[in-house]
């Protein structure tokens, strides 16, 4: 297995790409960018792409997750340009949301972030008539908006209510996160960041460090070691969907 080597190479390329991109956008003077120089002759090779050796996952420690805190939700909205307001909030997109749980028999409350669980056997992918819902080789479940026809069958099929339908035209997208009217969308694990070797915005933003992101297949990763050592659960484990997101403390 040359996985560690593979990984370090990827993160090096990622870092190089970030460096080049950073250099490219340094403003020399208002309206004049170095970008022109670097654009025509990209110096870095394209990234390797998603590998089936990797399975991205997230471990959420709900004992650290504070009721009323929504830093991760805000970080997600900022990162992914979810900034529109709708008259009826039920029509608005929520890629990640905070759910408060209360056991009627117990006093204490749980709070946890809920988002696309990036199933290994995703029902949304099964039901999508055009194949727009798909799972990348590294386990990230995405919607290809180029072939999404907006039938919302995936939203009927998702057991986690993780998907949203864009109900109105959008204009203020983040250039790296295209999203638009009439298509279904959901958490991407910040795939544009992950491909550059970074972590999802929610993971980085959490002040309590309750979210751990990593490669479930890499035995040396923190997430894989903790899942092997500590107890964790999958939401609606009865469906046997083999989720990429695991919870602790519920």
């Amino acid at each position, binding site marked *: 297995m040359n996985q560690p080597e593979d990984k370090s190479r990827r993160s090096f390329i990622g870092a190089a790409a970030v460096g080049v991109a950073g250099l490219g956008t340094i403003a020399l003077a208002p309206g004049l960018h170095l970008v022109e120089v670097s654009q025509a002759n990209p110096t870095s090779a394209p990234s390797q792409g998603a590998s089936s050796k990797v399975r991205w996952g997230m471990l959420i420690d709900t004992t650290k997750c504070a009721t009323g805190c929504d830093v991760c939700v805000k970080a997600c909205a900022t990162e992914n340009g979810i900034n529109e307001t709708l008259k009826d909030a039920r029509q608005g997109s929520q890629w990640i949301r905070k759910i408060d749980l209360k056991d*009627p028999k117990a006093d204490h409350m749980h709070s946890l972030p809920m988002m696309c669980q990036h199933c290994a056997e995703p029902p949304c992918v099964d039901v999508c008539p055009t194949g727009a819902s798909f799972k990348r080789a590294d386990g990230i479940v995405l919607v290809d908006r180029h072939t999404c026809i907006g*039938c919302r069958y995936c939203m*009927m099929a998702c057991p986690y209510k993780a998907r949203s339908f864009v109900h109105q035209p959008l204009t203020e997208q983040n250039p790296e996160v295209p999203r638009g009217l009439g298509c279904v969308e959901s958490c991407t694990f910040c795939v544009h960041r992950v491909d550059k070797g970074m972590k999802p915005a929610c993971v980085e933003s959490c002040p309590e460090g309750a979210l751990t992101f990593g490669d479930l297949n890499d035995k040396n990763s923190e997430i894989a070691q903790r899942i092997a050592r500590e107890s964790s659960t999958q939401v609606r484990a009865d469906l046997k969907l083999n989720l990429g997101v695991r919870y602790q403390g519920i």
Partner: protein
Amino acid sequence: MRTEQDIRNTREHETLFYALTMLGGLVTVAGLAAALYMEHAGHVVTGMNNQVVWGLPHVFAIFLIVAASGVLNVASIGSVFGKVMYKARAPLSGMLALAMLAAGLAIIMLDLGRADRLIVAMTHFNPTSVFGWNVILYPGFFAIVGIYLWTLMDRQMNPYYKAAGFAAFIWRLLLTTGTGSIFGFLVARQAYNSAVLAPMFIILSFAWGLAVFMVVQWIMFSWNEVSLNPAIRTRMKNLLGTFIAAAFYFVMIYHLTNLYFAKQAAFEHFILVSGGIFPILFWGGYVILGTLIPLILIYHPGLSQQKGSICLAAELVLIGAICLLYVFIIGGQVFPLDMFPGMIVSSSFYDGLIDSYIPSTPEILLGLGGFGIAFTAITVGVRVFKFMPEDDVTALDSTGHMLD
């Protein structure tokens, strides 16, 4: 010799025909305009949201699609099961099926978030998706029923009508299985995910399809001032009664199996008792109006012989059908997903709450537009082609087909 009275009647009929066609056309145009508006402004102008993702257009569309496959049964009884009496009704049955399926599909297509990408739906195919199968099942239905109609109406093709009729019958069973399976395989929501849904939709289609047929037949006979032979009327009404009862049995089975599983009990309580509009529509709309009263109208010795009582029964069945689908589709979605069994759940995304759904004007117009398409197609169809069932009663009597 035509009398002056006849000529006047013909003229009145002519005017009425154009008026009806115009009305159907106007409703269709209103529906198309609504779809265009929804397409442009987005689904923000509808009552649908991220919890109730399918709304009134889908209720109407699924009604039309299920009834379309069911109405073809009339032809199948003639061609596949050899009941001569129904053979005279086969062309009308096939035409109704095509018109209603086209209308139902039009609604579904126009409600898509990206209706402009119809070509994507046709060229990208996911074999694990029930919707994907339907992309094959629906056009296939058009083709097979089209050929079937050809074999029925063209003397040269007539030798093949049995084969075509058999193919159409098998295909319509597959199609309704597909429609039921759209919901049957959904594990996420408690209302769906049941193996009984596919057969339930087939039985429902028998009842709804025959009801549509009988209403249209009644209107056509009245229009032409012909009366249906009492023996044929009795046979058709009894068949409708059987289908209504069988459909009711399946609906009961569906709810009883749900009640058996403790985890679905809360959902059943919502639909059958506490859910506001949904229990009202279920008990009042489907059970009383759509099942019990039609059964009384059909089987009561006195009432069943009243003029128009059977047509009224069929119309009530159709009202009950819309009520049942509304409860099934909307009621099934407003009920919250049960992600954390036994916990009290709350969130900014309305987890744990019963959602509300109020259809907006564009949605209602789009749904009605579908009915406009079906209505216009049927009105023009029965005028242009020879779809009127003609019963040779003496021949039926002498060959004993009236009794078989």
